[in-house]
C-alpha cells in the first residue's frame, strides 16, 4: 500500500524550513543554558567536590546545610537590599536624566554621550577606577571631602561594614542607570506632544502634567524597567567581587555561591545556593511575564 503524504501548504512548508534553521540555535541554547541549569540542579543533591573522587547522593543535605549557614542568610538580605534599592536608584536617576535629555538645550548631544559613559566603559576599567577613588588611603573622594572640611580622618569606604554595602550599591546604580535612562527616554519620546498642549490649555501646571500624563504614559515602560532592573541587579556579580570580594559583609547570593563553588571547592553547596537564586529569579520572571501578558491584553 503506498504511503500517503499529507500535502503541505506553502505557509506550512515555510514554517517547517524556518523551524529547521532554528534547530542549531536551540541546540546551542540547550547546551549552554538548559544543560548547566539541570546539571546544577542534579548536582545540588549529591556530594560533589573536585578534590574528591566520585559523587554520593545526599538528598536535601546541601540545602539543609546552606540554609543553616549564617553567611547565606546575610547574603539573602544583602541581595534583596542590593536588588531593590539598586533597581529603584537606577530608575529614579534614569528617570530624572531622561526628563532632562527630553528637553531641548544647547549641548544635549554631548550631555547624552557623557551620561552614557558608565554603560560604555568596560566594567573592569570602571571598577578599577572606583576602587582607587574609594581607596581609604589615597582615594580622591577622601581627598575632596577632606579639603572641603567635611571629614577630618579618611573614611575606609570599602572596608567598613555598612558603608561598604552602600558604596557597592552606589557604584552599581552608577553603572546601571544609563540603560534605564535610555529605556525611559524612548518612552518619553513616544508620548504625543498634543497631550501636554491640551493640558496646558486646560491650565495644568508642569507637576500635574508629569503625574497625570508622563507617569501614566510611561507605566508600561516603568513596570518592565523595574522588573528587568531587579532581575539584572539580582544577578550582579562584578561590582561586589571586584570591589570587596564579599568582604565587609557585602556578600550577595551570587558572590557567595561563587566563593563556595570555586574558592572553597564545594560545588554541591554552591549548586544548592544557585538553585535557590534561580527560584527567586523565577518569581520575578513570572511577574514580568504576567505583566507583559496583561499589557498585551489591554
Amino acid at each position: 500500500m503506498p504511503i500517503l503524504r499529507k500535502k503541505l501548504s506553502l505557509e506550512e512548508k515555510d514554517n517547517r524550513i524556518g523551524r529547521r534553521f532554528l534547530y542549531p540555535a536551540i541546540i546551542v541554547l540547550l547546551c549552554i543554558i538548559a544543560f548547566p541549569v539541570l546539571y546544577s540542579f542534579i548536582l545540588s543533591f549529591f556530594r560533589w567536590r573536585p578534590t574528591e573522587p566520585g559523587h554520593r547522593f545526599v538528598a536535601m543535605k546541601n540545602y539543609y546545610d546552606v540554609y543553616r549557614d549564617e553567611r547565606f542568610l546575610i547574603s539573602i538580605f544583602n541581595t534583596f537590599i542590593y536588588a531593590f534599592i539598586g533597581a529603584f536608584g537606577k530608575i529614579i536617576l534614569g528617570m530624572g536624566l531622561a526628563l532632562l535629555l527630553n528637553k531641548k538645550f544647547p549641548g544635549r548631544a554631548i550631555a547624552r554621550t557623557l551620561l552614557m559613559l558608565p554603560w560604555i566603559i568596560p566594567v573592569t576599567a570602571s571598577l578599577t577606577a572606583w576602587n582607587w577613588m574609594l581607596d581609604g588611603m589615597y582615594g580622591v573622594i577622601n581627598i575632596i571631602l577632606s579639603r572641603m572640611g567635611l571629614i577630618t580622618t579618611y573614611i575606609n569606604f570599602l572596608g567598613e561594614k555598612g558603608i561598604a554595602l552602600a558604596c557597592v550599591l552606589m557604584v552599581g546604580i552608577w553603572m546601571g542607570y544609563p540603560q534605564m535612562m535610555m529605556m525611559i527616554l524612548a518612552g518619553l519620546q513616544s508620548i504625543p506632544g498634543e497631550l501636554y498642549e491640551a493640558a496646558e490649555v486646560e491650565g495644568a501646571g508642569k507637576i500635574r502634567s508629569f503625574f497625570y500624563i508622563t507617569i501614566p504614559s510611561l507605566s508600561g515602560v516603568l513596570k518592565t524597567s523595574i522588573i528587568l532592573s531587579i532581575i539584572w541587579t539580582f544577578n550582579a556579580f562584578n561590582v561586589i567581587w571586584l570591589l570587596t570580594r564579599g568582604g565587609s559583609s557585602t556578600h550577595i547570593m551570587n558572590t557567595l555561591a561563587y566563593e563556595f563553588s570555586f574558592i572553597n571547592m564545594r560545588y554541591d553547596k554552591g549548586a544548592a545556593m544557585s538553585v535557590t537564586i534561580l527560584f527567586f529569579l523565577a518569581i520575578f520572571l513570572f511577574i514580568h511575564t504576567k505583566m507583559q501578558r496583561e499589557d498585551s491584553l489591554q
Partner: protein
Amino acid sequence: MLTVLNEWYTVYTIFTIFWRYLMKGSVRKNVAIAMMVLFSLSAVYAGGNTEKSVADKPVDVWMINSPVETIISAFDAAGENFTAETGIEVNYVRVPTNDFHTKLVSSISAGVYPDMIIWNSSPGVEFSQTGAVLPVDEIVNEIGRGQFGEGSLKMFTVDGDLLEIPFMVRPAGFHARKDWLEAAGYNTEPKIDSDGYYYYEGLQTWEELLEAAKKINDPSNGKYAMGFAYSRKAFGDSASFCMSILYSYGASLLDENGNVAIDSKEAIEGLEMIRKIWESGTVPSAATTWDGGSNNNFFIGGDIGMVFNSNSIMGKLNDTTAVKPEDLLMIPFPSGPAGSFMSANPESITIFNKGNVEGAKAFTKYLLKEETQVSMFEIMGFGYYSPLKKDVMENELFSNLNQNERVLMQDARKAINVSFPYDPNAKLNALYSSFLFDDALSRIAVDGWNSERVAAEMAKKVTEVIND
C-alpha cells in the same frame, strides 16, 4: 572508573528527559542528525590526537604570571633549550596569581588538565584524593632524595606517595626601610648568631618589630610603618601574614590527635598580637581593602616602612623608584614564643597522569638539572627565587650574596605549610584557600571582634571542613 560512569549516567538522565518528554518527533530527527555530525567531528579530532608521539605534542605548563620580566625570560630560555635538546615543545600558560586556583579547580573538574604545573600552593596534595596527580617518587629517587631536604619532601607526601617535587622557593621576606630604621636609631649592621645566621638587634621578635614600627610611624605625613593586608582581596598575602604569626606563637590547625586546635591558648595569643598591630595605628586603615599588589606598590612608592611579601620588591627597586635599592633592608623573619615560621610553600612541580605525561616527566628532569637552574638564576638573578636543591645551593653562583640576599636565603628554612607540624592534609590545604586566615584578620580589623571570638569562629570553620 566509577566517577566516569556516574558522570555519564547524569548526562544520560538529562538527555533522556529531553528526548522523551520535551522533544517532538521531527525535532528528535534533526537533533539526532546534528549530534551524529558533532560526534563524527569529535571522533575524527580525537583520533588524530592519539596518534601523535611524545615529541609531537607540546608540554602544557601552567605557572604564575610573574611580574618580573627576567623570571619570564629565564623560564622561556629553559623551555627553548629543552625543545632544542629533545624536540618537545614547551607551552607555558601564565595565569594571574588571583585566578590560578579557580582556573585550576575548574579545569580539573572539567577533566582538562595541564600536563604539569609549577606553583607554590601544593596542588598535588590538594587534589591527592582525585587520582589525577602522578606520584613522582621515581623522578626524585633518580635525582637522589638527598638533593632535597626531607622536610620539603614530607610536605608533599600523602599516604606514602610523593605528589610534588620541590623546585625552587620564592622566599617571602620581611622588607623594611633601612633609612627610616636608621633615623629611628636602629643599627642596620647585621650580627651573626651561633648558627651563622644574620640578625639585627631590636628587630627579632614580633613584639620588638611592633615597637620599632611605632617609632617610625608618621601617619600625619601619610607614612605608615607596617603594610600588612587585613583583607580577603589580598589572597595569599593576608593569609600568610596571619598564619605566620599564629604558628610563631605555637598555634596549629590540629593537634597531634587530629583534633581541632586553632582555638588554643597559643592561637589566641597570636591573634592578640595581630590585634595589637592593628590597634597600634601603624597599619593604614585602608589595608582592610588592599589587594595582592597594594602592599608592594605602597612600599615601592615610599609610603610604607615594612612589608612581608614574596620577594617581588627587590627586583623592582631601581634609581627611578621612590625607594632606592640601598634603602631596602631585609630583616630575618620575626619570631614568636614558639619560633620563627613563615607560611611559604616551596614552588613545586606537579605532574598530572593524563595528557603528555612522558613529556612532562622529561621537562621536569630537565628543570631540576643543576646546569639548567644555574643558567636560570644567571638570567633572573637571585632574590625572587631561591634555590632548594643541594647541588644548586652549593654552586659558586651563590657564594657571593649580599647582606639582603643572605637574609632571604637563610629565611627559606623557616617555610612551613598549613598542616605544620603534622602530615599534609588535603582538607587543611583547601582551608588555606578558603579565606580562613584572611577572614580572621577582617574580623579583628573590620568587625572589632576579640581574639577569643575570632579563634572560636576559626575553630568552627576548621571543624566543619574536617567533619564534612
